């Protein structure tokens, strides 16, 4: 028993605003259609699945911090608040935000203004370009003084963030930790991804887990996270994922595997091959929602927790992440039914 529990989940995705919508879509298994992204008359080669408009204006947008916030911040705050649920007394709640692309909308916009004329570049836009702006907004909404980290990396970084949050809880530095990943769509992102994965459906959104030392509700425990195994070249990916698999392998017919593979990806076959002996059920989140960089692995974790809650026959769920350009890593969750 690790003593660290998942006490809430949240998500924003092309399936809609809410973890239940994400899980429903992944269970259904139908791939979201993509469309070209166009900004300032420039259209990229890639296609994207966007987050739909929320059914009503989220109440959190009334917070002064969020008046000028970009989609990445709004997605992150929405997922965080959903994961937090009715929890009050959040002053000692830490925030760990994971991103790969970051606040790219405002960065592009501010740089365009810079090139046009530095003297008229907007002072309101620049602060929102900083990597940690979204996580700062979450702490502000919670009025929390607890540590707030922004981690930058590929999708594997979300699991590193979960481990860091769990460590802070074990050391009793904080009462709770929100671990969030968030990404927003932009022509810069779709262009960049399409340079390496020509057929990729690029998507956007966020996912969040709320961790505490005390279990609440349906008890899902964060049981283990492997060491991240780095890779650089193509040849290093398979041994990295194999090492991760071997260190977390706990497969049974009552264990769910939530994979990071996608039929669109050149690495699809590698992940399928590495996990070929898995005897339990499997889910491939990207096959439905596309490549959302760091948010993809957060969605995997959200789906893993939700499946453990929804399906009483499951005891454990393993999340396997083969990132785009940095690391392989895996996490395992366990459910304790009353």
């Amino acid at each position, binding site marked *: 028993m690790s003593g660290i529990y998942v006490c809430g989940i949240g998500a924003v995705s092309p399936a809609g605003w809410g973890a239940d919508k994400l899980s429903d879509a992944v269970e259904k298994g139908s791939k979201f259609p993509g469309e070209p992204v166009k900004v300032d008359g420039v259209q990229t080669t890639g296609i994207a699945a966007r987050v739909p408009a929320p059914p009503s204006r989220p109440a959190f947008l009334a917070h002064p911090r969020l008046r000028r916030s970009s989609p990445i911040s709004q997605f992150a705050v929405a997922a965080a608040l959903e994961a937090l649920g009715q929890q009050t007394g959040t002053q000692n709640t830490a925030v760990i935000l994971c991103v790969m692309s970051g606040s790219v909308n405002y960065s592009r916009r501010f740089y365009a203004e810079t090139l046009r004329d530095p*003297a008229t570049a907007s002072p309101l836009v620049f602060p929102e370009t900083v990597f940690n702006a979204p996580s700062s907004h979450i702490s502000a909404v919670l009025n929390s*003084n607890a540590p707030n980290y922004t981690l930058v*990396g590929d999708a594997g970084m979300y699991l590193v963030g979960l481990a860091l949050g769990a460590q802070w809880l074990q050391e009793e530095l904080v009462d709770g930790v929100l671990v969030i990943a968030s990404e927003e769509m932009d022509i810069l992102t779709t262009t960049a991804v399409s340079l390496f994965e020509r057929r990729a459906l690029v998507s956007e959104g966020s996912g969040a887990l709320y961790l505490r030392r005390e279990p609440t509700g349906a008890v899902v425990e964060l049981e283990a996270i492997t060491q991240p195994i780095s890779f650089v070249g193509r040849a290093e990916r398979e041994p990295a994922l194999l090492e991760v698999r071997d260190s977390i392998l706990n497969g049974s017919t009552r264990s769910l595997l939530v994979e990071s593979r996608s039929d669109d990806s050149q690495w699809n076959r590698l992940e399928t091959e590495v996990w070929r002996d898995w005897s339990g059920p499997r889910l491939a989140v990207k096959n439905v929602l596309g490549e959302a960089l760091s948010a993809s692995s957060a969605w995997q974790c959200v789906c893993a927790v939700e499946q453990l809650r929804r399906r009483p026959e499951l005891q454990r769920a393993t999340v396997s992440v083969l990132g785009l350009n940095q690391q392989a890593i895996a996490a395992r969750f366990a459910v304790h039914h009353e």
Partner: protein
Amino acid sequence: MLFPLNNSGGLRRVVVTGVGVITPFGRGWASNAQGFREGKRAIGPVSLFDVSTNRSRIAAEIREDLELGETRLSRRTQGRLERAARMLLIASREAWEQAGWRGETRIPLILGTTSGGMTLGQEFYSQLMQDGTRRGQAGRIMHYVPQRQGQDLQQAIGFDGPITVIANACATGANVVGHAWEMIRSGQAERVFVGAYDAISQLVYTGFDALQALSPNPCRPFDAQRDGLTLGEGAAALAIESMESARSRGADILGEITGYGASTDPHHLTQPHPEGLAALSAMELACRRAKVTPENVGYLNAHGTATPHNDRSEAAAINAWAGEGASNLKVSSTKGSIGHTLGAAGAIEAAVCIMALREQWLPPNVEIGELDPAARFQLVGKPGSASFEYALTNSFGFGGANASLLLRRAA
């Protein structure tokens, strides 16, 4: 396993055995120790890009050729590295060699930056908007992301291990050192290599200028007439390991990290709480974890950006933290010498503290005129020797990211 941890061995002492630094003072311990000890200043006109329509036109740039020297990187890869990555590699090489680490594998690498390879990002954007061709774009985007800069560092020096990039704005240089301290202290790692780096880019320079946070003149931290910061650039790298590891191999211990505190100021995205409450919390936590009281701290390296808001808030926090002992506390901001190096600042300032502790001097706060009356502490005004055992260094950033590190002279 990364989690759960098996830390049955109890908390361990954490030491620094390698320091590498490159700043506008130049590369290496000697040139930087001399520059900071003597209170020199390295601020001049911006030469990297056109600032003719900006409010401010000065910065602390690194003027030297960023030649890498000995490296395992191919010529092709070297050719793709932009300024920030080169600074990181130069500082890292020095720290690695000073530590004497050899043939190591699976050493965690913790990096801190606010903008990584921003100049490559700028080029990527410009080409996309101009003609949209793919030529060179894959290479730009590969080397733009900070994790790739970490991979290049590992390849250049010859080690591997997981890479974690922390981007907590201007506190991140302290966060990476503190994070390494937490990993080693808890038994998660025996050794951790840390690097923090940022180069001046047009986007970031214009951003601070648009906020009117830049002074048109060289910055004057804690001066009553201060009117903004000066941007700088640089990198620092630290080889950090457990005391047992360092002693077992007879390493030269340069200094000890004894405490780290991080907190968040939710007051405003770009302005600190006027009373510096979260800053105070970070300072107190660093000292509490080290079991050290403010009277034991002989020198405080302030964040001291020279913006009216920061210095007033930080002065309030320092006053509250030091209490009645504030009038005896020696404080300076080294940003008056090399500007604000953003994501690198916390690590560079930790390196300056290690130099000062080891060689027993205090870096002066350059060209102070009239001291802000909010500061009840002793601002170090002139170069000089000192005898002290502990130094505290503060780093605060956009978004309310606050971090304090407590460092101790090697016994």
